[in-house]
């Protein structure tokens, strides 16, 4: 793996993780402070989007989706998934800092496992399928149609 690819992958991975963590946090904050249950009508769902926290959260989640798609344009799915899961750890830490949630021993254990998994997968090659092979497979599939 070239240093350039590694740097590009690291930088985009950071954007994917931050957009996801902050987006989920904003949405969760907005929904928690509404006080009523969702699910009674379509109008209810639409009204939720008037909340600025929910709107901000949705925009961040759109950024998350687009940056993740870009990352998947060169990186394996089985690489991207575990590596970006470090976001769960950040979500738990944000819950502790901003929402005053307690982090139990079990949660700390979970945090350690996720970090170990992320580090393990982060040390593997970013891409294990060859671009040319994939292109050839798509070309063959299109010809046969």
């Amino acid at each position, binding site marked *: 793996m070239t240093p350039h690819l590694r740097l590009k992958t690291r930088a985009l991975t950071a954007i994917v993780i931050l957009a996801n963590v902050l987006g989920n946090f904003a949405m*969760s904050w907005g929904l928690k402070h509404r006080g009523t249950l969702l699910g009674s009508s379509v109008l209810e769902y639409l009204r939720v989007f008037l909340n600025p926290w929910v709107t901000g959260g949705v925009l961040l989640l759109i950024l998350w989706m687009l940056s993740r798609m870009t990352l998947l344009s060169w990186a394996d799915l*089985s690489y991207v*998934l*575990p590596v970006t899961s470090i976001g769960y750890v950040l979500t738990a830490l944000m819950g502790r800092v901003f929402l005053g949630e307690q982090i139990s021993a079990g949660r700390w254990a*979970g945090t350690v496992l996720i970090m*170990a*998994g992320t580090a393990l997968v982060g040390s593997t090659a970013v891409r*294990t399928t060859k671009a040319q092979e994939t292109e050839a497979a*798509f070309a063959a599939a299109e010809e046969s149609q």
Partner: protein
Amino acid sequence: MKWALVAVIVGATVLADVLQTLGMRHHGEIHDFRPSALGRAAAALARNWYVIVAVAMMAVSFFAFLTLLSFADLSFAVPATAASFVIETVVAKYFLREQVTWKRWAGAGLVACGVALLAL
């Protein structure tokens, strides 16, 4: 109701990720990050059927998750969907033909267990 929603979320997420990976492979690597080039890539992706169906599946997963969050805790909703890590790694190996080495299996397993533990 809770677990039915979890099944919908996991199923839709797995489908969305697989289709997204196929769609992006079909599109090819994005390496030009200037706004005009990103705009062209976005226009091409908006006509890519893998990506279109993937986004629809993500929407299904998103609204199911929103519904689940409205009556269940985040600390139930997040870990309950942890199964998708292992399922997606299996699909990545056998369907997407990625080389899932022992490090990746172990990593996906550790992450899934870790996410489940976060509920405690």
